[in-house]
């Protein structure tokens, strides 16, 4: 063989044809079939459906071989409310009819879910958290809902509690009267709150500043500073978060936080189509996120009706818990827009549903 032929043969060997991943092939084929077509012939429809069915059936058969080890995600249906202001129930039900303003963009082909170690719910966990805050005492375990809490009461009235979800609460009494007659600047309040995060072992650099509520007078004791993790893009659940209560004297008088920590495992999942997610929302299977505080009463009945126009769809994240108490930061398909309620008022909303393909979820 001549040098020329030898080299050409070696190039063919070194640059072999590639086969597109089956997952991409299936997803794109489905997408192509879904695209609007102005002049569809009737004869093409059965063939298209048969082809899609063949792809799907064969894909399901091959799937365990191709992707054997992905852990399942908690089903969205099993998660609790994430809406701000709804923890005790808003006292009414919001019933929205969803429409979309135009065609919604497809979700990314793949998304990540982050798995954390199980919640460190134990007497030792609350002892360690209390120690970071300079609080020591005996651990008291008490019944709470269908579980229990662990609490430490300090000698000066401080309290540190851990709940089964990994939520911590810290409280210490405020003085009878503050010497300061006004709150310091927001920047100073934020600095004080960040200092507190450091004491908890949360790196302030990883904490994104959220809402800041400063009372008009010191009579209301404390300002509230909210943080969420910077590494989460488009977070729709309240958790993870940290809420720090700062007094006019820049001392910390309370806090609540859920902040997953420990070794993370990131797994990548294939998404389902935006059309499938949208069907869930229209069928009432989505989880609605509205700031119920923005809806003024009184409500003449137990239901407020309204229409909700979706203008955008994207991947967002919520914090969920697996059956083994593992904490999962999982992706959801989030639809956002503005709802018009029956009294004409308008409120922004997000409604979300499952983002990844059904086989990745734990049984509902």
């Amino acid at each position, binding site marked *: 063989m001549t*040098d*020329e032929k*030898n*080299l*050409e043969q*070696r*190039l*063919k*060997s*070194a*640059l*072999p*044809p*590639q*086969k*597109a*991943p*089956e997952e*991409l*092939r299936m997803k*794109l*084929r489905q*997408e*192509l*079939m879904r*695209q609007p*077509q102005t*002049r*569809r*012939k009737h*004869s*093409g429809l059965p*063939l*298209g459906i*048969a*082809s899609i069915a*063949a*792809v799907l059936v*064969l894909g399901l058969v*091959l799937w365990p071989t191709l992707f054997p080890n992905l852990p399942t995600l908690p089903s969205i249906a099993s998660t609790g409310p994430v809406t701000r202001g709804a923890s005790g129930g808003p006292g009414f039900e919001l019933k929205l009819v969803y429409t979309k303003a135009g065609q919604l963009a497809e979700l990314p*082909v*793949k998304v990540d879910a982050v798995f954390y170690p199980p919640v460190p719910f134990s007497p030792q966990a609350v002892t360690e958290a209390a120690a970071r805050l300079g609080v020591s005492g005996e651990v008291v375990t008490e019944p709470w809902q269908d579980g229990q809490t662990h609490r430490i009461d300090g000698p000066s009235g401080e309290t540190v509690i851990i709940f089964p979800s990994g939520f911590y609460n810290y409280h210490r009494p405020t003085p009878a009267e503050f010497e300061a007659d006004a709150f310091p600047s927001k920047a100073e309040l934020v600095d004080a709150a960040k200092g507190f995060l450091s004491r908890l072992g949360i790196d302030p650099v990883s904490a994104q500043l959220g809402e800041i509520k400063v009372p008009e007078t010191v009579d209301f004791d404390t300002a509230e500073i909210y943080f969420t993790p910077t590494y989460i893009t488009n977070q729709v659940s309240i958790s993870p978060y940290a809420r720090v209560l700062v007094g006019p004297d820049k001392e910390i008088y309370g806090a609540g936080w859920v902040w997953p920590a420990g070794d993370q495992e990131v797994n990548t999942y294939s998404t389902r189509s935006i059309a499938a997610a949208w069907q869930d929302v229209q069928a009432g299977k989505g989880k609605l996120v509205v700031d119920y505080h923005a809806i003024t009463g009184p409500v003449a009945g137990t239901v407020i009706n309204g229409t909700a126009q979706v203008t955008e769809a994207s991947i967002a994240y919520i914090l969920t818990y697996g059956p083994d108490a593992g904490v999962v930061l999982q992706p959801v398909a989030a639809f956002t827009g503005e709802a018009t309620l029956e009294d004409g008022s308008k409120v922004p909303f997000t409604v979300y549903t499952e983002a990844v393909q059904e086989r990745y979820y734990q049984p509902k």
Partner: protein
Amino acid sequence: MTTRGASYAETDDAVLAARAQGDRAAFAELYERYMDKVYTYIYYRTGHSSLTEDIVSNTFLKALDHIGKFRPRGGGFPAWILRIARNEMVDVLRREKRQVPLEDEWPTGNNASPEHQAISREENAELRRKVEQLPPAQKEVIILKFSLGLGNKEIAQIIGKSGTAVSSLQHRALTTLREEVKPL
């Protein structure tokens, strides 16, 4: 995996393209025929799986939108779809302002024939590195020629140069590679 509609399996590309304007199954057959070629081309050019998947997806969606503009001349449907892929890739890279380096480990050929496998992984890796170091235009011709098995006429259609220019680029690339790669 066989997914194509049996009635179109033997149909000519040009006929399929004409029918694809009103028949999605015809387009699906073209998709099955050329998916791997487009994927191979973009993967070797970008060296990134996720980027490749995005570009390949956009390529076929654009092709579907513009299938009515396809005319069976020049390099035929392969040249047409690969040209769309090339334009899409250039747009994406420009938009993201990315200089995409090839991954250290190019694919080693899961689908390689026994003959391919006879050549050692190390020798292939060395040759791929040399291809990667070629000027972009030369590298592109080498990928289209030896990985996709296209002729000079089709390559010329895809990269927008004359057949003579393609021959020249290929000649210069092979000369460089011959000098730099030790003979077996």
